């Protein structure tokens, strides 16, 4: 027991230290590396808090995909061949060369705000009732009518189906927004900035099937254990981004129509369930018959995994990809 306590203390200390160093880092590269390690420590903390589902998502999104995006952005900002001036390294505190560096007043103000918010939150958390299970007992009571055995999946894909459906809509909106930023309609011809390395190509070639297997495993796991569409989707996204980074065929090879289908399939299938249930006379909206719920949930999860994977990898590729001819984008 003491060992666990020691581990917890170490974890908290590490989280605080890493976040402190991260905020104080003057070098963006260092800050990015620290951010990724912060995400990993945080996912360990989620495991200690007994929330493996969130730990998986945090490790994959918070440390993995966010890390890729940050590194990619860093590469884009780095003074390279096309940027003669090295103002970036001389004044590391800012990304926008026009705006001034934050002064002492700004820092003081920021610390006061963050400090008072933290104090307030600590007070509020200390005030929380000690015995609050929330809706957990109720979820376990209705679990057998939900069609799955894992309570988190039951909540996400049956009791609060509406929320999950809208979350997939959020992903679609995000991708559509980035398409506007890049002024594009699809992902075709988006290339990596640097030519991929041969070793990397081979390595990823070997890794991809294993990752595909993990996707299927996580998806299947969601039925009765921590896992499911979101976790599987993120691993799928990681696989697609890795394949793209190493110069293999990835979603950039898909035609516009096919890519769009994959992107909105999850949202559209859940929309279809909603429309059918709204048209069905004896059903409430978004209700499905109990004997079919296992099948419907599985179907929705498979399609949602595909959509989440494609959406997240599209976000990364759209943010980081470059077009060969400079006038084309």
């Amino acid at each position, binding site marked *: 027991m003491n060992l666990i306590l020691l581990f917890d203390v170490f974890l908290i200390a590490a989280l605080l230290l890493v976040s402190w160093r991260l905020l104080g880092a003057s070098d963006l590269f260092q800050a990015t590396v620290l951010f990724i390690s912060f995400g990993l420590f945080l996912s360990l903390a989620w495991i200690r808090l007994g929330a493996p589902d969130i730990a998986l998502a945090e490790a994959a999104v918070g440390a993995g995909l966010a890390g890729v995006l940050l590194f990619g952005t860093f590469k884009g900002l780095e003074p390279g061949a096309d940027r003669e001036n090295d103002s970036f390294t001389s004044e590391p505190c800012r990304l926008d060369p026009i705006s001034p560096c934050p002064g002492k007043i700004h820092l003081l103000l920021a610390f006061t705000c963050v400090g008072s918010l933290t104090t307030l939150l600590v007070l*509020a958390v200390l005030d*929380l009732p000690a015995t609050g299970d*929330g809706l957990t007992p109720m979820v376990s009571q209705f679990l057998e009518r939900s069609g799955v055995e894992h309570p988190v999946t039951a909540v996400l894909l049956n009791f609060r189906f509406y*929320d999950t459906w*809208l979350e997939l809509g959020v992903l679609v909106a995000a991708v559509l927004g980035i398409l*506007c930023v890049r002024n594009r*309609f699809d992902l075709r011809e988006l290339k990596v900035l640097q030519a991929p390395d041969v070793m990397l190509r081979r390595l990823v070639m070997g890794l991809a099937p294993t990752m595909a297997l993990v996707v299927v495993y996580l998806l299947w796991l969601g039925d009765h254990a921590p896992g499911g569409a979101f976790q599987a989707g993120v691993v799928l996204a990681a696989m697609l981004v890795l394949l793209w980074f190493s110069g293999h065929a990835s979603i950039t090879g898909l035609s516009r129509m096919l890519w769009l289908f994959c992107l*909105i399939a999850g949202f559209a299938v859940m929309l279809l369930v909603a429309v059918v249930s709204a048209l069905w006379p004896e059903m*409430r909206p978004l209700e499905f018959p109990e004997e079919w719920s296992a099948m419907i949930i599985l179907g929705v999860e498979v399609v949602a995994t595909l959509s989440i994977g494609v959406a997240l990898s599209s976000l990364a590729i759209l943010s980081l990809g470059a077009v060969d001819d400079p006038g084309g984008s």
Partner: protein
Amino acid sequence: MNQVIWVVLLPFVGSVVCLLAHRKAVFALGMAASLGTLIVSVGLVAHVWEHASARVELGGWATPLGIALHLDGLSALFLLLTAVVGVLVGIQAGSYFAQSPELRAMGSRFWPLWLLLWGGLNGVYLCSDVFNAYVLLEISTLAAVGLTILSGSTASLVAGLRYLLAAMFGSFMYLLGVALIYAGTGQLDFLLLSRGVTPQVHTLTAFGLMVFGLLIKSALLPFHFWLPPAHSSAPAPVSAVLSALVVKASFFLLLKIWFVVFESISGGTPGGMPSQLLGILGSLAVFWGSFQAVRQSRLKLLIAYSTVGQLGYLFLIFPILASPDFQGHEALAWGGTIFHLFSHGLAKASLFLAAGCLLQAMGTDDLHAMRDIAGRLPVITFSLGVAGVSLMGLPPSAGFVAKWMLLRAVLASGQWWWAPVIVLGGLLTAAYVFKILAHTFVPSEGEALRLNSVPLVMTLVPLALAILCVLMGFRADEVIALLPAVPHFGTGKNGWEMP
């Protein structure tokens, strides 16, 4: 009452279809979805008129476990405003985005995002669950940011990024509040929460965080910084939607959080101070927003600052309703606020669409370039004038009815100090409206500006919106009669009972 869900389903179906459809068919499909949504929304208003509120438990799961949709007078009126503005903006977008290949490409991006936004907004009006409200706010925010940066110009990208960061910060604060309230009470549903919330440190913190987040999203004074650049740099149909509808959705949620979920806190003594604070911030917003609007020399920026000012009036409802000697006058306060919201929505949509026409005709929205416009573009100038009259609050417009009701509510509540805000705010509004109109009548010196042609439909839509705004003023009684379910929703007497 299962057809409630269709106001969310139809725009989403339209969005998916528009995304996959061929570029040429997008407008027709989008309009079909818009008209369908309008019909369902009108049907829901009729339903509220006849049977008061309705409640649907999604998925057949009873509320603590599942999510419920709640339709009452307030939601019905918001649905109606969104549908009317939505359909008219859609018609405008049809001809706006048909003019050049670049605009056509932009239009094929506009429709999926706009319908996604519409579905999200309708969802917000119907939602009865604090977490569900968060997801709906996210979908609306992301779609709205996507629409802001539709043109891809540098100015719009900068404005969009600022909007995104401010809105995300607001969502994050709101979500922190949701987490605290769920940890404290184990409930997420509006009604169940309103029964379970008692004034404690954690509930007060949650209340503060949620309200703070929503204030950022509703652009109340110190948090308005993101609004003018975002609303002024978007394409005209988008600006109209952003100013007329999107900021109001978070205000709607604020009303529900304040008067339903945390009724026991905001209604009692602890609610007095924050209510007054919101009133003060609202008044400052009226002055500051209008003052900044008067100072602008670009038309779209002027209209965007006017939104900051006009939103301020909405926040007067908090101190008015918090007054202890206000029994029996709730209907006035609610009526005035809803009327203002409606008239501002219609007038602001009209102004932004008219500004879009002017921008296209002149190639710039610099006020000083608008010489001799009144004679050459009479319809657009007329729309600007009529919508301006309603903003100022002159009879016989809806804006007049709104300000009159608000003024009476303020006096009835014994808080006379808000009355000068309403009157002086109207004067400042008059100043910037006349600033616009004055420029249009100045005869041009020397060579006249060459004007590009504007399609007829594009000039008629703002006119239709402005005329609707005035007609609503003539038909004030009917609109107020639709409100009976609204005034009581704050007091929990009606409309919020479990079926």
